[in-house]
Each structure stands twice: as C-alpha cells, then as structure tokens.
C-alpha cells in the first residue's frame, strides 16, 4: 500500500509516466503565423481571429450563457490577445494561451456583473429591491429551477476558489475532455506536473464545496 498525501511534500506521481519531448511550437505553421503577427503583420492577426473565433465564442457561451454578451467578451479576448501577443513565448500552443485568456475574461465578466448587481441593489430601498426581484426575468437573478443551471452556477462559484492556471487545466480536462498526455502537449508542462496540479486543484474544489455546504448563504450569493 502506498503513502498518504499528507505525508508527501510532492505527490509521487509519474513512476510509470515517461517524459515526452516537448513540442517546438515556434517551428510549426501556427508558430510562423504567430511570429508574423508579433512583428506587426495585421493579416496574420486577422487569420488568428478568424481561425479561433468560433472556439472562443463557444467557450464563452459555455460559461456565461448570455448570448448578448458573448460578442463583447470575445472582442475583449481578442483585443487582449492582440495587445499581449508580443509576450507569447511559445511554451504552450496558441489555442491554450487564448483559452486561458478567454476563461479569465469570462470570470472577470461574471465578477463585474455581480458587483454591478450589488451596487444597483444597494441604491434601492428594500421595497424596490423586492419589486425588482419579483419582476426580473433575467437568468442571473432567478433561483435556478433547472438543475443544470444550478450546477453551472455552483461549479463557477467553486472555480473562483482556484488559481487561473488550475482553472484552465480543470476546464481543459473536464470540459474540453483532453487527456493528461494532450494537456502536457498543449501546455508545455510534463505529465507529472499536470497530474500534481490537477490533483491539488481538485482538492481545493472539494474543500471549497465542503465550506459552501456548511454556509448555505454562500451558495446562493
């Protein structure tokens, strides 16, 4: 029988996992496209937008489920890609990098929406808040009747308790369905590192879930 996690400074993963050579993204056709965009070639950047826009739209829709806002968030994502493309260092694939920016942008959007709602509500009297709550049909105000919607809200809440990197890895693994091997290839990390990071991220989610269940007010908040 093996050892228990608590006794291990770093989980002893990967005894069976052989290290694979890293993909040199700089020398792929996509790498050449990125290099052209980095040197200011607008047509290369246009190609990047056209190549990945539907993927970005679908990631955003999966997280925020507000069709009206998907385009705005996508614009913000590609603007960030454009403005920070020079710092892209080819350690991961371009789509992994864009994926991380997209997920962060979605969480930023959800956080801002919550703040806006709180500010709006704080300006109203109790009667007005009650009236708004009774009349508002918007998805984000109503108590989620659909269990899938409730699950989505819950997992999004849990995902705010992990780091950006952990969030990206969990999403790529659980939502996009990539294997550990594929994740290693896409992120430029080795498989052991991916396993350790995912394990720690999962532990954090479980802890956060336990805490939220103990304080029910937080679940709906």
């Amino acid at each position, binding site marked *: *029988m*093996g050892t228990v996690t608590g006794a291990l400074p770093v989980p002893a993963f990967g*005894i069976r996992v052989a290290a694979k050579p890293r993909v040199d993204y700089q020398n792929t056709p996509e790498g050449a496209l990125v290099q052209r965009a980095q040197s200011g070639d607008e047509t290369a950047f246009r190609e990047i937008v056209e190549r990945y*826009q539907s993927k970005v739209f679908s990631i955003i829709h999966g997280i925020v489920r507000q069709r009206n806002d998907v385009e705005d968030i996508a614009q913000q994502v*590609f*603007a960030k890609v454009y403005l920070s493309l020079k710092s892209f260092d080819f350690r991961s694939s371009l789509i992994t990098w864009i994926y991380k920016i997209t997920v962060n942008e979605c969480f930023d959007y959800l956080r801002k929406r919550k703040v806006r709602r709180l500010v709006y509500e704080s300006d109203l009297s109790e009667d007005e808040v009650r009236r708004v709550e009774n009349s508002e049909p918007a998805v984000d105000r109503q108590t989620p009747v659909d269990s899938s919607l409730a699950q989505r809200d819950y997992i999004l809440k849990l995902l705010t308790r992990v780091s950006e990197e952990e969030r990206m890895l969990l999403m790529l693994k659980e939502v996009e369905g990539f294997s550990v091997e594929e994740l290693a290839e896409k992120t430029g990390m080795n498989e052991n590192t991916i396993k350790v990071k995912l394990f720690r991220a999962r532990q954090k*989610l479980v802890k956060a879930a336990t805490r939220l269940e103990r304080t029910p007010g937080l679940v709906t908040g």
Partner: protein
Amino acid sequence: MHTVVMESLEEYLAGALEPAAQRTIEDHLSACRFCREEIRSMQDVSQLFLSLRTEEIVESSPGLYARVMQHVGRQKARPSFAGLFGLELAFGRRLAFSALLTLAILGGYLVSRETAYTGGPSPEAVMAQQESPAFDSAPAPDNMLVTLTAYEH
C-alpha cells in the same frame, strides 16, 4: 489519498483505465475508507463540469476582426499612468532606476555619516561618570538616565 489511487486518478475519473488498473484501484477503494470518500467527493465535483459543456453551436458574427481592431484602438487611446506624464515605457524604467540609485547613494552617505558621529559622550564615558557622579544633588541612577538620554539624542 494513497499513491496507488493518486497515480491513476485522472484516468480513473475519466473512466479511461485499463481493466487491470481499474481492478487494482477498486480493490484498494473497497479496503480504504479515506480514499473512497475523497474520490467520491472528487467524482461529485467532476460531474458538475458537465453543466459547462455546450453542444450548441454559437455562430461568430461576421466582421469580428474589424470590431476587435476598433476595440484595440479605444484601449490604446485610454491614458495610462505613464502616459499621464508623457513618458515612454523604457524611459520611465530608466528614470525609476536612476531615482532608486540616487536614493541608495544618499542613504549610504547618511548612514556613513551617522557611524562617524562623535558628538556625544561614548558609553565608556557615561559609565565612568556613573562611577563618580557629577551632579551631587541628584541620585546616581537618575544622573545616568539623564546622561543616557542626552547620549541618545
């Protein structure tokens, strides 16, 4: 969680283990309550991610590139902190570095001046004064306190 489960956790959660490895883990789980409970919690959380999967195809609108470039233009036009002072980033860095260097030199100079300060009586002189008090009217400990305070100042 025990290593035997941890090593194959991702494959186990994804249901992608070879039958032999699957059996090994299940044998362990049936004997270890700690691992069984932890993995069950992880499976529960893992199930929640299904709600983020979308089968719906979201059509991206035509002309996105043009709107992204407008967005970039607006972001570039927003004044940044360095922009408020009309500073280039590289020049700003050099300026900050020079300011830090000047502060370090000035600080070093002040510290060296401080150690060279000989204006007050030395601790030895204070102790000698304690041996033969100069102020006959005050008790010796009070004299020492007064002298030490003066030394400190």
